[in-house]
């Protein structure tokens, strides 16, 4: 069991600070010292750590969640620096987001997307558009156009 690094009490709050190049630094403090630790680390390394530490406090205070798919806890990730499966990104979202913010400075992907993935997305957007155009065609009683759109929607839906 860890002792608080600021007093002799048992540590109940365990903080992982993320440094450059995916290196991690462990900190262990007790609940009494935690606000003071927060204050110091905020002035030292900025807000990102604070939210990370905040998530950690939550975890420490309200119990540890486990991924239903791969079975890891966030502490396992902290020890191995590896996640167990892709679902972990959702399960530990609160803990991971500040960490990602810290590593990448961003939390939203804006690069390449798998072709098959946007195909369905694209289809949905297309369908929405086609259905709107169908609705407008019916409103102006252009049934030739409505028939063409109906067939087109059927083709996209079946794709």
């Amino acid at each position, binding site marked *: 069991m860890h002792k608080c690094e600021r007093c002799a009490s048992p540590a109940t709050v365990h903080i992982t600070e993320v440094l*450059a*190049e*995916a290196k991690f630094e462990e900190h262990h403090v007790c609940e009494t010292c935690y606000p003071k630790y927060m204050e110091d680390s905020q002035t030292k390394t900025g807000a990102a750590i604070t939210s990370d530490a905040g998530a950690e406090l939550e975890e420490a205070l309200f119990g540890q969640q486990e991924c239903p*798919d*791969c*079975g*890891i806890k966030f502490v396992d990730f902290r020890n*191995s*620096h*590896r*996640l*167990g*499966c*892709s679902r972990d*990104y*959702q399960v530990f979202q609160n803990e*991971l987001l500040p*960490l*990602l913010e810290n*590593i*990448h*400075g*961003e*939390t*939203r*992907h*804006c*690069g*390449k*997307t*798998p*072709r*098959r*993935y946007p195909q369905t997305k694209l289809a949905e957007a297309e369908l929405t558009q086609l259905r709107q155009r169908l609705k407008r065609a019916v409103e102006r009683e252009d049934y030739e156009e409505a028939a063409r759109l109906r067939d087109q929607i059927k083709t996209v839906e079946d794709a």
Partner: protein
Amino acid sequence: MNLDSLTEQSGEWLRASGPEADIVISCRIRLARNLSSFPFTNRASTHQKAEIEQYLKGRLEKIDFEPRLEYVNLAPLSALDRQLLVERQLISRELANSEGPRGVAFAGSEIISVMVNEEDHVRMQVIRSGFTLDEAWQDADRLDDKLEEKVPYAFNEELGYLTACPTNVGTGMRASVMLHLPALVLTKQIEKVFRALQKINLAVRGLYGEGSRASGDFYQISNQVTLGKSETTIINEIRDVVPNIINYERQARQALTRENHAQVLDRVRRAFGVLKNAAMMTSEETMDLLSSVRLGVNLGLIDDIDIFKVNELFIHTQPAHLQKLLGRQLDSEERNTERARFLRNRLREMDSLN
């Protein structure tokens, strides 16, 4: 695939062709991908890893992509054969030393390789000679598309490609440029380059990746950030900074030639002399001496030596290559003797050819 034949040829990335090839050895794009329906490699059971391997092997061999990739099962290979693949940069040291079902698919040209069951299920890479980041990215992108036609990737719209380590999430891409910077090392300006690159979130590593010493004055510059930027943005950032480093190295080379010509000439000549005559030679010393020779060739201080041949020596004198070339296992002392003999013969051959 007969791995022994690898030693008779050289990876395309060693060819010393392409733009700025005197300083830019190679460009490399690496993409990390995972299958959505399996746990990440570190949490997968041996059985699951075998399934993943079987699944990916089948698809890799069938994808509509030229050149055709050939799959090599790593588990039954000897440590020596795996080390050979590491030295050729076809697989990572981590994959070589890990356990369980795993493999690599690559084509004869060695431009493209796809590791299976590395830290992520799929790690594909493209290495090209010279300053050719865009071309490498085009290849990698195309390969990725083709594989994705057959394989459902773990992806979410928010975080992009999901990877075992959050440092790779997003694009899953590591773009890197391998530079030979002997003059910046000699003039003690390399630290300045490090600091500048770190400021703009670019990482600097040695020849064989993370944690390896920058022996032979080779430095690999790569992106740290994989999330929140598109692949082309990341590549553009590196593509834009590399010419500055190239210029900086060229200036250092010119300054050396102008102000310390005798010293540089001396260093180069001595390196050449020791390489052509020593009876024992460690891999580390070889890298350092070859680096001086490479600088000498580029500065025109040593005539008529093919820079490609020098590049090749860097790889062929690595432990596994040496043992493959000689056709037998060697202990460390034997390697040092055989490496020296190999260098003597090769360099004298070159000399007499010219």
